[in-house]
């Protein structure tokens, strides 16, 4: 276990370092994306631009710039080029929103997948199962922002039963927090849970034929009881990794489209704004943050995997 942690930490650090270099490089080669010209504004004079270049060190070598940028990242002192705001504190501000969004979405996902997956397995081969198969196929084929847009139109604009977007802190008003996040949660949870419910169904049906299940059945337990009591635990193992990585994606700002559609000022929307603004410091930090979420949660998933399934060996 210890050696796993050491090896994993090392390889993660390598990956994160590579992510930072790659990001920096991509945005260094943008034609005329010169931040000095952008900062100087529409009425800039060449003198102003030259002065900005000096002050911000854009005239130095790219490696020099990279190293000084990374120093700022580690001291938490990265300043955005566009609005000269501390990037790390911006992400900290977006974090509660994104965390609420990701947690709610993953809770709903787990609930939906368990219900749909077990229902599918229990009714396997019957009409209910067939309908479910088609419904979940539709669900997993529908992008979350399409669900979000249609739900927004129907429930927020037309029926006006739910707010049309924005975020309320849980501490301020728990009920409003819930109603504001309900549509975004559903929009995210539907496609993911449709996918994982099918994996669960298949996994349940696979395991039903294992020996220990036959034994249980032979003891006279009902099919559904066996499914829930004995098979579910084993069948959940593959889902741990699916859910874990989806959660990592959402947490890391992957819900860009949903955060945009519902005007949630989370990490995702900040990421979208940074990229649209081609603002290197904030893109770099957001990307590192997202990659960190993925790297960390993949490691957690691997540990969980090993804990749940004795056949799996931890491999750095």
């Amino acid at each position, binding site marked *: 276990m210890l050696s796993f942690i050491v090896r994993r930490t090392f*390889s993660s650090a*390598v*990956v*994160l370092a*590579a*992510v930072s270099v*790659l*990001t920096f490089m*991509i*945005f260094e*080669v*943008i*034609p*005329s*994306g010169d931040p000095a010209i952008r900062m100087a504004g529409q009425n800039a004079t060449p003198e102003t631009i030259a002065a900005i270049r000096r002050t911000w060190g854009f005239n130095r070598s790219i490696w020099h710039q990279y190293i000084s940028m990374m120093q700022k990242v580690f001291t938490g002192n990265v300043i955005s080029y566009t609005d000269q705001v501390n990037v790390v504190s911006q992400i900290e501000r977006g974090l509660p929103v994104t965390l609420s969004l990701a947690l709610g979405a993953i809770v709903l996902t787990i609930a939906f997948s368990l219900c749909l997956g077990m229902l599918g397995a229990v009714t396997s081969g019957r009409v209910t199962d*067939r309908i479910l*198969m*088609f419904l979940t*196929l*539709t669900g*997993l*084929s*529908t*992008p979350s*922002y*399409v669900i979000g*847009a*249609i739900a*927004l*139109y129907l429930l927020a*604009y*037309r029926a006006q039963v739910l707010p049309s977007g924005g975020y309320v802190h849980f501490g301020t008003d728990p009920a409003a927090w819930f109603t504001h996040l309900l549509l975004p949660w559903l929009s995210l949870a539907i496609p993911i849970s449709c996918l994982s419910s099918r994996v669960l169904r*298949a*996994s349940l049906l*696979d395991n039903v034929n294992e020996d220990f299940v036959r034994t249980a059945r032979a003891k006279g337990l009902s099919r559904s009881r066996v499914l829930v009591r004995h098979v579910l635990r084993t069948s959940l193992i*593959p889902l741990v990794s699916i859910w874990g990585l989806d959660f990592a*994606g959402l947490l*890391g*700002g*992957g819900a*860009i*489209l949903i955060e*945009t*559609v519902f005007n949630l000022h989370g990490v995702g929307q900040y*990421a*979208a704004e940074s*990229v*649209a603004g*081609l603002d290197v410091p904030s*893109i770099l930090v*957001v*990307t590192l943050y*997202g*990659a960190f979420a*993925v*790297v960390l949660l*993949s490691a957690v998933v691997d540990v969980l995997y090993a804990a749940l399934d004795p056949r799996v060996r931890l491999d750095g």
Partner: protein
Amino acid sequence: MLKRILKDRLALSCGLIFLIVAVLSLSAPLVAQYVAHTGPNDEHITATIGSGVHRRYVVSLVGVPIGPTWGPRFFLGADSNGRDILVRLLYGGRASLAVGFIAAAITLTLATILGVAAGFYRGWLDAVIVRILDLMWAYPVILLAIAIGTVLAVSGITIGPITIRAGSLLLPAIIIGIVHIPYVAKPVRGQVLVIRKREFIDATRVLGMSPRRIMIREVVPNVATSLAVFAPLMVANSILLEAGLSFLGVGVLPPNPSWGNMIGQGISLISVAPTGVLAPGLMLVAAVIGVNGFGEGVRRALDPHGRIRPR
């Protein structure tokens, strides 16, 4: 295998759905020329249709486009630029499907090369490839794609002798194709590791085959089944990612239509012109259901125990 799919009614109906979407998309020029009499990017903002009391603006003075006429012109209505939604929908389908298939082809090709090379040679090559895959895996995909899309929208790109202009369909296809690589390359590598240990590779080695020949002759055919299972999945995912990127304005670039950018452009008008979002949304979902459903049929036929799973 074919027999199994032919018996799979769900897979067949999904295949049919996809076929209909594809045929409709391919017929776009015919519809444009003979039915709607307008191209996908032709604008009729200040035009009127109908005559007498039925005369209506295609786009009202405050910018609200006409709804479905259910007639030859503006069958599904117009968008805010006075373009025929049906015509754009069908042309958009060509773009979305083309990007989906090209991207999937790129993913499968590169992923196979990387996965097979890494798994077969092992050693430092494996270590490097695995690290690269880890990097791509951890890099926030959408951010990467938006970043590259934003950059290349300005300049296009030149790789060796090939120059791809900004606005070319190949750009989003390549971006999507690349970001999906680890999803396929990782399981392929895993499979190659297993195949490598089997005796027949040893046998071929004894027979004096070169490593490259072994790979092409013996290893690749053995991972072909997995690739066949991944292919539809990758097409579906690529279509979805293309739609997402175009929705954000960095995939298929305007004025050319794709389902994603039609949704993105129509979304602010959804309350007065819902077809602008619903039509491309439904086509997108139908196409993806078609590919996914058919793909599952392929999987059931080739891999009944669900062993092959992309990461």
